[in-house]
């Protein structure tokens, strides 16, 4: 009976897995998986635009120089359904974002995990893009 149930579970898992896992745009065309980046900075603006929202970030370098980075997140409606709202990332919030740099070398990155000063983590990425750290189960 146990074997039979396991087989059923496998069948159902396959059924779910067979569903297409395709986001709007592919990660690999825009971002470089070989260039992971960690940005520590202050939010200057959260741009709630489609098809991806963007976090604008001021990053102070050790030499005092300030860089302005833009971090791509998931689709705004996906973020809202995950529980984000207009107050989730107000300007002035200090955050750390882990992601991957744009292939064109610009100061843009695809954001995956975001950490607040208190250690709370958020997933800000777009699912189904084929990004290397993508997790289908948590």
């Amino acid at each position, binding site marked *: 009976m146990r074997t039979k149930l396991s087989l*059923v579970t496998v069948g159902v898992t396959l059924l779910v897995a067979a569903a297409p896992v395709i986001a709007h745009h592919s990660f690999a065309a825009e971002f470089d998986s070989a260039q992971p980046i960690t940005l520590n900075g202050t939010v200057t603006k959260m741009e709630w635009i489609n098809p991806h929202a963007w976090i604008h970030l001021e990053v102070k370098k050790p030499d005092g120089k300030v860089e302005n980075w833009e971090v791509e997140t998931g689709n705004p409606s996906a973020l809202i359904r995950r529980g984000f709202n207009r107050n989730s990332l107000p300007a002035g919030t200090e955050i750390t974002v882990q992601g991957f740099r744009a292939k064109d070398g610009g100061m843009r990155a695809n954001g995956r995990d975001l950490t607040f000063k208190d250690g709370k983590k958020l997933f800000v990425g777009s699912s189904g893009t084929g990004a290397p750290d993508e997790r289908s189960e948590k």
Partner: protein
Amino acid sequence: MNRQLVTVAWTLTGLIAVMSWAARPVAGQSPATGSKTTTASKSASPATPRTPWGDPDLQGSWTTDSAYAIPMQRPQQFAGRAELNDEEFKAKVETDTKRRERALKIGDGGIGSISEDAAWITKTFRQTSLIVEPADGKLPPLTPEAQRKQQLAPRGTYGNGPLDGPEDFGLYDRCITLGVVGSVTPKIYGNGHRIVQGPGYVAFLNEMIHEHRIIPLDGRPHAGRNIKMYMGDSRGHWEGNTLVVETTNLNGKPNYSGGEKVIERFTRVEPDVLRYEAIIDDPKTYTRPFTISIPLVSPPGYQVLAYDCHEGNKALMQALGGERAEDKALDQDLKKGIVRARKPVQNGLGVGGSPTGAPVVSEADTR
């Protein structure tokens, strides 16, 4: 202004109001919640509610999120069976429940705690594939002409380039359209569909990627034969409680939306389940007609949100920028005496676990 124009104006006003409302920032909004997983399946149509003017009432905020758990084509282990048996169904209810509970946990203050946007499954269905006809649940083979076209079709951010301009990207990449049927097939996110009715009209708003349709029900003639459009020209009529929409004047570019005519059927089979069927007869592309059947659900509190795709579509700029960076890298290597092949766009990564460069079969493909 005559009555018909007033109706159109009101329908449009309603649609715009809905879109504006959906687009507003949402403070403290709890995520779309679902009741416990139910055992929905094909069922006899109960008394369909009526609009004040007597039409079957299909209005509401619907989603194909639950249908995302049904594959487009029937997996081999369910060959010959359109529905799961009781044991398989029980197991699937458990799987779907786990996915839903994981998604709902975000309502406990853990925002952004999931990376699986397709977890919003509020009803489990016995259906083993979205394709219900032919009876094997498989997409009919492409015609030789369509196969040739597919080889040449731009695959954009999901292909391997080279990418030199906007035409190297598909319609979906470019935020143009997913087409009449493609905008309803379930995706990993953005599955909202709003239906608004007025006397003589039905209006649809598809969340991703922003399509809307205003369909007259008065039997007026279609546009002239030479006018071809991405979303075609739709006319609707009622057959009992089912809205039947015939769409002609299709330009055939989006997937599942070619041929002389696409027929769609919308039936409210339960108060919170809308059955959508599309009959595609496109002999230039497919070797036989086929039918896609998709259940849409309306969980309590569900909202269709804005997906104004052109608002900030930086994907093309970034993908083209990546290709130009590769041009420069190739030049620099050549100057150093290194002769190498161009890096493919996917750069060793597969999408959804597929091997690099392998065709990704999905509703997202656009020709």
